[in-house]
């Protein structure tokens, strides 16, 4: 057991901080502030991303056979943590999920065709998973891909396809054998979004963000759009999701909200801190954040030691997502009516409206990315070994 950081990681952390301070420019901040909920990366953000890729930081912790350097997962952890502290966006989006899957299951030609683009961000992805009748029960998906000569002909509808309006490609799960058991008749494809027959319709959410539904009508793609073997898709999807397991730095934003709340109370509402009950509620939030940190670090420790966490990633997900609601809710209650003000209430809104925004956008963290009920099933069954 060791709850501090070793020298090598301290040095690396310092390197990331210096890097970030160099790239943290007013023009990048302005670009990020103006992007709204759009997934579009502006020129400054792209410059940052390219610099991160140039340093080799995107893949440094991947195994060598996946084109990485095989470094300890703690490097990834430290890097993401520093990006979160600086409140700068990190990552190649869904590319960091799909890239390894293409690397592992694709042909040599597919690797050459897609991977440089994914790492360089010329190829951006959206995930074509959910459908009207396949949400938590993803394997029930109905979008059909039928072999037609050398091509595949795709028909169906995807739902909650975030970034479909900006992505260059969709990573698609489609049914290729309707007669097989549902997990054994799915295949994965990579399809350019400008392929004829694909149409995207926006769905606006209560968070103010946009997601989409995507329709596929006689979408014809060549045989090399298929990644992996026919009907191997469920296994590939599970493998791609595996790379998301580490659940790194996920709670960074919550820590910032707490810090801003403390700063606001100290500066604008100091009388609140005289109240025992208020101090007590703030400390309870701090404890919840401590637990979040503990769960995330425990999970990362298991990953870094080379083992596969059975339940710790799910614990982190459940805790962090429920805390997102809880922290915004308690903070709004503590502040009273000003807690409800949005960022448009110029000059009056605490934390620039972040509290009401966080409250409004908290539900998706709980039902999305594997609903918390399912996560608790995973903790109980895969982690604790309880029977089905």
């Amino acid at each position: 057991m060791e709850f501090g950081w070793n020298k090598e990681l301290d040095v690396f952390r310092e390197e990331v901080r210096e890097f970030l301070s160099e790239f943290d420019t007013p023009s990048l901040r302005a670009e990020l502030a103006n992007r709204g909920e759009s997934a579009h990366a502006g020129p400054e953000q792209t410059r940052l991303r390219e610099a991160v890729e140039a340093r080799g930081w995107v893949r440094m912790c991947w195994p060598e056979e996946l084109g990485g350097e095989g470094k300890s997962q703690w490097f990834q952890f430290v890097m993401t943590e520093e990006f979160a502290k600086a409140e700068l966006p990190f990552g190649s989006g869904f590319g960091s999920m799909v890239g390894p899957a293409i690397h592992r299951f694709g042909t040599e030609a597919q690797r050459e065709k897609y991977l440089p683009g994914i790492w360089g961000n010329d190829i951006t992805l959206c995930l074509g998973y959910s459908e009207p009748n396949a949400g938590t029960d993803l394997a029930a998906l109905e979008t059909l891909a039928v072999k037609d000569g050398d091509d595949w002909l795709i028909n169906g509808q995807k739902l909650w396809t975030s970034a479909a309006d900006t992505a260059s490609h969709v990573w698609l799960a489609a049914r290729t054998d309707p007669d097989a058991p549902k997990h054994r008749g799915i295949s994965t494809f990579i399809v350019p979004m400008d392929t004829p027959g694909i149409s995207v319709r926006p769905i606006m959410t209560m968070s103010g963000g946009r997601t989409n539904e995507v329709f596929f009508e006689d979408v014809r793609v060549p045989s090399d759009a298929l990644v992996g073997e026919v009907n191997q898709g469920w296994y590939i999807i599970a493998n791609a999701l595996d790379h998301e397991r580490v659940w790194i730095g996920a709670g960074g934003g919550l820590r910032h909200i707490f810090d801003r709340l403390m700063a606001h109370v100290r500066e604008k509402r100091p009388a609140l801190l005289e109240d025992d009950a208020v101090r007590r509620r703030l400390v309870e939030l701090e404890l919840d954040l401590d637990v979040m940190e503990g769960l995330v670090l425990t999970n990362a420790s298991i990953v870094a030691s080379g083992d596969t966490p059975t339940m710790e990633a799910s614990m982190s997900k459940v805790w962090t997502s429920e805390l997102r609601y809880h922290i915004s809710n308690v903070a709004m209650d503590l502040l009273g009516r000003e807690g409800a003000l949005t960022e448009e209430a110029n000059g009056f809104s605490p934390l620039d409206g972040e509290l009401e925004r966080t409250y409004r956008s908290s539900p998706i963290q709980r039902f999305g990315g594997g609903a918390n009920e399912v996560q608790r099933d995973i903790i109980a069954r895969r982690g604790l070994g309880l029977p089905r």
Partner: protein
Amino acid sequence: MDTTLSETQRLLRDSLRDYLRNEVPFDRIRELEREGGTDQALWNYLQGAGFLALPFSESHGGEDGELTDAAILLEELTRRACVIPFLETTVSALAIERHGDKGLADEIVRGVIGGTTTIVPALQDSTSGNGASPRVVDGMLTGERLFVDYGAEASHHLVEATEDGEAGLYLIEASGEGVAKESLSTIARTPLAHCSYDKAPARRAGGLEALQFLNGAGRALCAVQCVGNAQQALDMTVEYVGMRVQFGRPIGSFQAVQHHCANMATQTLGARFLSYRAVWSLDQGIASDRLIAKAKALASRAATEVTMQAHILFGGIGYTEEYDLHFFSRHGKERALAWGSADECLRVAADTIDEVQPWQ
């Protein structure tokens, strides 16, 4: 950063776990709870195996290990509901060795490692309203301490007292002149005493620094005891609901039961992280009262809530005296209050909220 046990720590844990499973049946605990006293046979084993020597300096015959190692042993002892003053003796002797009187340290630590000395802290408790705070005059200590764990069984007391208006720690021979011990019965049925000192010969063992370490280390290790009680109750519950059949299937296959177990496991893991981090930071010399108080607050809650939820999932069988679950809910609740309840610890954290720094 590594929250997993090292290979050595794993071996340490497993070897004690195996011994306890084979040699300390729960009926032994029942007997001790009924008749009082501590488990001398177990103490002798720990002494022989070198487990009493781990965190102490080699210059005093110790193993130069860490408090973390002692915490790992303590968790195992807790998970078997063992009745021995391991926490109390470890933190008392360490307070003297690391921060107290140098001359006394060698004698005391060697006595502990040799198995002949057991020392228990007799400290100011925020809930004790009666009795006179001990004072030392001319090497004689007079006063009362209300809640002294193993006060009637230990060979020595390490008493918080004032001398010329200054607080410090004083060593008293428990069987010596002027020491009266009255046993107090608790929900845990483990030894606790009300101690009165009337001109008891006292040797100065340390000042404020030693006292602060003793309070911090005791609280952090008690948090580990809380975690041990929660973990044991959780593990027993998972095993039980996995085989108890109702409606033709194990009740552990029902989601309502599974989700309770998932929440218990999450709560226990969170408390575990904070508690062991608190112990570790004491070893590093970077512990703060606030960090330790937060850990104990969480651990106290886990010891209470997880063990009580276990009873709800067990139903009737877990409610019986014959079954072993009640050891952990009773001991867990008692440990939740010892060394600062969740409420007391949250108050410490709330009163020092000015120390909260932005994430860096």
